[in-house]
C-alpha cells in the first residue's frame, strides 16, 4: 500500500501539478477575500468568516477537485499500468485506499496554502479561532467526500478529461440537492422532502462554517466517503470482469 501512496505523491509533487493546484486554489480564494475587504466602510474592521465566502468556496471545490482526482484510475488504465497493479500482490482495496490517501494529502497541501488569509486578517482585523477551526474541519470533510466521488468517476472511464468533466457536472448538480428538497412540489410530501434533504451536503457544511461540529454531520461525511470508496472498489473489479 505504501509504495502506491508514495508513487501517487511523487506524480503530484515531482511535477508542477500539486503546486499549480494549490496556487490556483489560493488565487480563487483571494478573490472573495479581496472583494470582502473592498466592501468594508472605514468604521468596521474586517472579520474573517467562511460564512461570508461560503458559496464561492464551494464553487472552487467543484472546479478544482475533479481535476485533482481525474487521473486517479483513468490514467492507470490509459497507460496500461492497471495490469501492473492488479497482477502484483496488492489487494485492490488497498490500492483504492492508497490513492485516496494520496489525493487527501495533496488536498491538505492545497488547504494549507489558504491559511495565509486568516493570518493576514488576524494582523489587522479579527478572527474567531474556534470558528475558523470548525470551518476548516468542515471544508476538509466536504473535500474528502468530493475526492472519493471524483475517484469513483475516474474509475468509470479511460479518459482523465472525461472524468473531470463528468465530475464537475455531478458535483455541481449535487449542490442543488437542498434546493430540490425545498421546491414547492416536493415540500408537499414532507417525508420525501426530508429523505432528499438528508442527502444534501451543503447545509451540513454551513453548520461547520458557523462553528458547529455536529456528530450527525461527521457521520454523514464519513459514511458518504466509505460508500463511495467501496463503490470505487466494486467499479474496478466489475470492469475487470467486463473488459478484455
Amino acid at each position, binding site marked *: 500500500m505504501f509504495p502506491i501512496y508514495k508513487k501517487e505523491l511523487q506524480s503530484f509533487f515531482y511535477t508542477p501539478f500539486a503546486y499549480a493546484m494549490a496556487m490556483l486554489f489560493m488565487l480563487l480564494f483571494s478573490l472573495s477575500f479581496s472583494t470582502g475587504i473592498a466592501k468594508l466602510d472605514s468604521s468596521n474592521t474586517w472579520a474573517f468568516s467562511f460564512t461570508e465566502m461560503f458559496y464561492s468556496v464551494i464553487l472552487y471545490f467543484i472546479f478544482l477537485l475533479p481535476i485533482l482526482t481525474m487521473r486517479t484510475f483513468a490514467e492507470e488504465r490509459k497507460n496500461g*499500468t492497471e495490469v501492473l497493479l492488479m497482477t502484483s500482490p496488492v489487494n485492490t482495496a488497498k490500492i483504492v485506499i492508497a490513492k485516496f490517501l494520496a489525493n487527501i494529502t495533496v488536498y491538505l497541501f492545497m488547504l494549507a496554502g489558504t491559511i495565509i488569509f486568516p493570518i493576514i486578517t488576524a494582523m489587522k482585523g479579527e478572527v474567531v479561532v474556534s470558528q475558523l477551526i470548525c470551518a476548516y474541519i468542515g471544508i476538509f470533510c466536504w473535500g474528502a467526500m468530493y475526492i472519493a466521488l471524483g475517484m469513483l468517476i475516474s474509475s468509470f472511464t479511460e479518459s482523465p478529461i472525461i472524468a473531470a468533466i463528468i465530475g464537475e457536472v455531478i458535483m455541481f448538480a449535487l449542490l442543488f440537492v437542498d434546493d430540490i428538497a425545498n421546491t414547492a412540489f416536493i415540500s408537499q410530501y414532507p417525508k420525501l422532502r426530508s429523505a432528499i434533504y438528508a442527502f444534501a451536503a451543503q447545509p451540513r457544511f454551513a453548520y461547520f462554517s458557523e462553528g458547529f461540529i455536529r456528530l450527525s454531520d461527521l457521520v454523514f461525511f464519513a459514511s458518504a466517503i466509505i460508500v463511495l470508496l467501496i463503490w470505487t472498489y466494486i467499479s474496478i473489479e466489475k470492469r475487470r470482469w467486463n473488459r478484455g
Partner: protein
Amino acid sequence: MLLMFILDFSIGKEQLMITIENLTKYYGSNRAVNHISFTINDNEILGFLGPNGAGKSTTMNMIAGYLPMSDGKVTICGADVTKNPMKAKRNIGYLPEIPPVYPDMKVREYLSFCAGLKKVPVTKRKSEIERVMKLLKIKDVEGKLIRNLSKGYKQRVGFAQALLGDPKFLILDEPTVGLDPNQVAEVRALIKSLKKDHSVIFSSHILSEVSAVCDRVVIINKGDIRAIDTIENLENSFTTTLILHIKVKGSKAKAQSIIEMTKGVKEITAIDADGEDVFSFTVQLEGDSDAVRDAVMAECLKNGISIIEIYTDKPNLENVFIELINRPVKKSGLQELLDETPDESESAEGDDAEDDETEKEEE
C-alpha cells in the same frame, strides 16, 4: 471417475508448477478462450503460439490473475489464482503486451516503485534493481524519463519489472515486439538463461522465435488448443508432407515419367522450365523420405538424366503451424493465415490493424 481425477491431480501437483485446467473466457456471448488445459513444468520454457486474435493475451491475462476467468482453474506453485491471489501473485512476473510503465517516472524510480509493489524487502531492493538493470542492459538510461525512451527500451524496462523479486514463474506476452534485431537476439538469450531457475511461458506469433527458445509449444487458434508438444515431435509428426525439389537436365517428358514411376513419389505438384532442357520439379513424397530421394536420384541417373540440384524441404514449424491451425477449421483459408503469419517487418502494420480489430471485438 471423479476420484481418479482427484488422485491424478494430487500426484501431478507435486511435480507441476503451473497447471491450467479448463480455462474459459467469454466476452458476452463471444467465446475467446475455450476450455484449454495445459501445464508448465519447473525450469521449462513454454511457447504460446497463435495468430493474432487467437486468445493468447486473454489467456495470459487470466493466468496472471488480471482478468477473471469465466470457468476453469489456474494453479501457480500450489496456489489458486482466484482463491489465493496474494500467494499466487507473489510467484508471478508478468510482462503484458503493452509494457506497464509510467511515462512520467524515471527508470530507476519506476523500478524502485515496482520493487515495493512486489514486496521485495527494503534491504535487498537496491541490489535487486541493479541486478535487473544489468540483465536488461538499461543501466545507461536509469536517470531518464520513461516518456523519452524508445519502444525497445520501454519494452526492456517492462521486462526488468517482471524480473524484480525473482519470481518463479514468468509470463511474457510478446516480449520481443518492437525491438531491433540485435536486441531481439539479446532478449532471446536472456529468456533462455532464465530457464535455470524459472518457469517461463511466452507468447509470440513469430515462429522462428518460438522454435529457437522454447522446449515445448502450445499452439492455439480461435480459443482452442491445436497442439501441445515439443518442437521436434511436432515437426516429425508431419513428415508426410515432405517436399522434394529436383532440378534436372534432359527431356522433360522422360524425366517426368521416371520420377512419377519411382516408388514413394506421391505426385508432381509443379514443373518449371529454367532454361533450355533444364526443368525444376516439385515433388510430394510419402514414406521414408531419404530412401525415396535416393531412389529418384538413382532412377534419373540410370536413365541418362543429369541432376543439377536436389533438396528436400524440411518440415519446419511454420508448415506445422499453418497445417495445425488450418486443419480443424477448413473455413479459415490458407491465404488468411499466410497474411497473419509473415515475417516481423512485413507484418508490423497489418498486425496493428488486426490488434485493433480484436480489441474492438473484446470491448
